[in-house]
C-alpha cells in the first residue's frame, strides 16, 4: 500500500509548481520589506511593534485572500480541468483524496503565516531595534505575547474562511463562486455584523459573520455584544465542522461527469 503522505506530496506539487503560488508569496514578502524600509527613512519616531502590527494586519488579510484562492481551486479546479477523473480512478478512497487536499491547504496557510510571522519580527527588529512598544500593543500584554496571540487567532479565522471556500469548491465545483463568497465574507463581515446587530434577535449571535475579527478580544473591555472569546470560538468551531462535513459528504457521493 502506497503511503498516504504521497497523496499530500502530490497536492503540494500541484500547489508549489505553479507560478501563481510564488507570485503570491513574493507579494507577502516584498510588501512588508518595502513598508519597513520606507518607514526607516521617513518616520521620525519609528517603533518596531507598530510596524509589526501594521504589516501583520495587511499581510494576514492578503494571505486570507490567497488561501481562499487556493482552497477554491483545490477541488473545483480538478473538475473544471477534467483531471478529477484520472485522480479518482486510483486505489484510494475519495475520503483520503479529499483529506490530502485539505491537509495540503492547511500546510500552505500555516507555512506562509509562520514565515511571515518570523519575517516581520526579524525585519522590524533589525531595522528599528526592540524598545518601547508605545501605544501599538494594549497594556497588560508583553509585545511578543500579544503578537503571538494575535497570529494564533488570525490563523483560526483563516482556517475557517479557507474551509468555507474549500466546502463551496467541493459542493458547487465552482472556483469562482468559492472565491466570491469567501472574499465577500472576509471583507464584508464587518459591515454585515454591524447591520445584523441592529436586528435585536437572539439568533444573530449564531451568525458566522458576527464572530470574525477575533483579535478584538485581546483588547480587554472591548467585548462585542457581550460575547466571550470562548463563545465566538465555539460558534466558529460549529461552522468549521459543518463546512468539513458538507465537503466530505458531497465529494463522496458526487457522480463525476466532468
Amino acid at each position, binding site marked *: 500500500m*502506497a503511503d498516504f503522505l504521497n497523496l499530500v506530496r502530490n497536492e503540494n506539487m500541484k500547489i508549489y509548481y505553479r*507560478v501563481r503560488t510564488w507570485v503570491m508569496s513574493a507579494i507577502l514578502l516584498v510588501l512588508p520589506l518595502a513598508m519597513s524600509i520606507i518607514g526607516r527613512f521617513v518616520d521620525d519616531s519609528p517603533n518596531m511593534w507598530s510596524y509589526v502590527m501594521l504589516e501583520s494586519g495587511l499581510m494576514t488579510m492578503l494571505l486570507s485572500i490567497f488561501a481562499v484562492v487556493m482552497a477554491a481551486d483545490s477541488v473545483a479546479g480538478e473538475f473544471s480541468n*477534467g483531471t478529477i477523473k*484520472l485522480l*479518482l*480512478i486510483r486505489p484510494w478512497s475519495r475520503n483520503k483524496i479529499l483529506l490530502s487536499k485539505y491537509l495540503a491547504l492547511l500546510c500552505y496557510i500555516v507555512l506562509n503565516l509562520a514565515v511571515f510571522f518570523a519575517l516581520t519580527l526579524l525585519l522590524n527588529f533589525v531595522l528599528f531595534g526592540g524598545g518601547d512598544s508605545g501605544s501599538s500593543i494594549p497594556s497588560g500584554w508583553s509585545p511578543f505575547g500579544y503578537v503571538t496571540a494575535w497570529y494564533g487567532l488570525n490563523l483560526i479565522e483563516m482556517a475557517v474562511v479557507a474551509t468555507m471556500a474549500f466546502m463551496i469548491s467541493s459542493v458547487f465545483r465552482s472556483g469562482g463562486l468559492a472565491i466570491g463568497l469567501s472574499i465577500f465574507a472576509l471583507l464584508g463581515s464587518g459591515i454585515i455584523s454591524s447591520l445584523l446587530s441592529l436586528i435585536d434577535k437572539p439568533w444573530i449571535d449564531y451568525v458566522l459573520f458576527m464572530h470574525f475579527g477575533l483579535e478584538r478580544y485581546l483588547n480587554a473591555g472591548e467585548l462585542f455584544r457581550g460575547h466571550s472569546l470562548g463563545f465566538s470560538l465555539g460558534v466558529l468551531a460549529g461552522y468549521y465542522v459543518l463546512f468539513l462535513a458538507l465537503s466530505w459528504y458531497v465529494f463522496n457521493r458526487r457522480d463525476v*461527469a466532468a
Partner: protein
Amino acid sequence: MERHGGGAEPVVRLVNVTKRIGKRTIIDNLTFDVPPGEVFGFLGPNGSGKTTTIRMMVGLMRMTSGEIYIKGRSIRTEFEAAVRQVGAIVENPEMYKFLTGYQNLVHYARMLPGIGKRRIDEVVELVGLSDRIHDKVKTYSLGMRQRLGVAQAILHRPALLVLDEPTNGLDPAGIRELRDYLRHLAKHEGTTVLVSSHLLSEMELMCDRVAIIQQGRLVDVRPIRRDAGAEKLEILFEVDRPDTASEVLDGVVLRTESGGIVVTAGREETADINARLVAAGVRVYGIRTVTKSLEDQFLEVTGGGRIG
C-alpha cells in the same frame, strides 16, 4: 468462482447495470462479460451511453442498480481492490497542464504501490514520448496528450485497460500505431483491453469481440471474424419438405420452420448444405440469411448513417 464454458473468469462482469439520472434511464439493464486477454469493443452511436458505462466501471459514477465486477471484485463495495486492476482514459486524457509530462506520471505513480523511476522511464519509452517528456503538458499536441494518457493508464500494468474513444484526435498513422499496440498488449502481456468507439470500421480492425449498445441497451455481443467469409450466420433454407431436410442434415439443423429449416453456417458450408439437400431430392426454393451481419446490425442501430 463461476466459470464460463470452461474458459477463464471474465475480467469485467456487468450484471443488470442501470443508471437513471432524474427520470431518464441512460443505461438500461446492461449485462455482459469481457473475457480475459481480448480486445473488446464497445460500439454505439454518440449518446448511446458508452462513456456513462465506462464511468460506472471505474467508480466515477454510481449505478442506480446492478453490479460491476472487475476480476471478481465489486467496484461498489470493494472499490480500491477493484480499481487497482484498471488503467483508464475516460473521454479526453486531461492532465495537469502546468506540470511536465514526467511530473504528471510521477503524480500517478505515487498513488500506486511499487512504481519506481525505472517503470516510468520504461513507459515513456514505450509510448514514444522520451523527447518531450520534460516539457510542460500545455505545449503538447492532442496526439501527445493521448500518448501521455496511455502512459498513465498502463503505469501499473493493469489487468484491464479501458480506453474511451481513444482514436479521437489521432491521425491515421497514430490510429494504426495504437491499434497495433493494443493488440500487442492483449496478445503478449495478457492485458484485457476495452475500447469504445462509434466507428464500426475501427472496431472491426481492432477488436476480437464487440458489444453493440443503443440508447443504453445492449443490442448484441458478437465476435469479429477477421475473415468476413468465415462469419457464421443463421441461414434459412426454403424447402418443400422441412422434416426430410432435417433428417438429411442430421444434427446441423438449428430449428425447423414452416416452409424451411434454419442452420448456422459460413459461406462454404452454406453451399455444401445446399448440395446435400439437392442430392437427397429436397427441393430448395430459396436461401437467405436470418441473422444480420455486424454491419447490417450496426447500420440499423445508427439509422443507416454512421455518425461521424
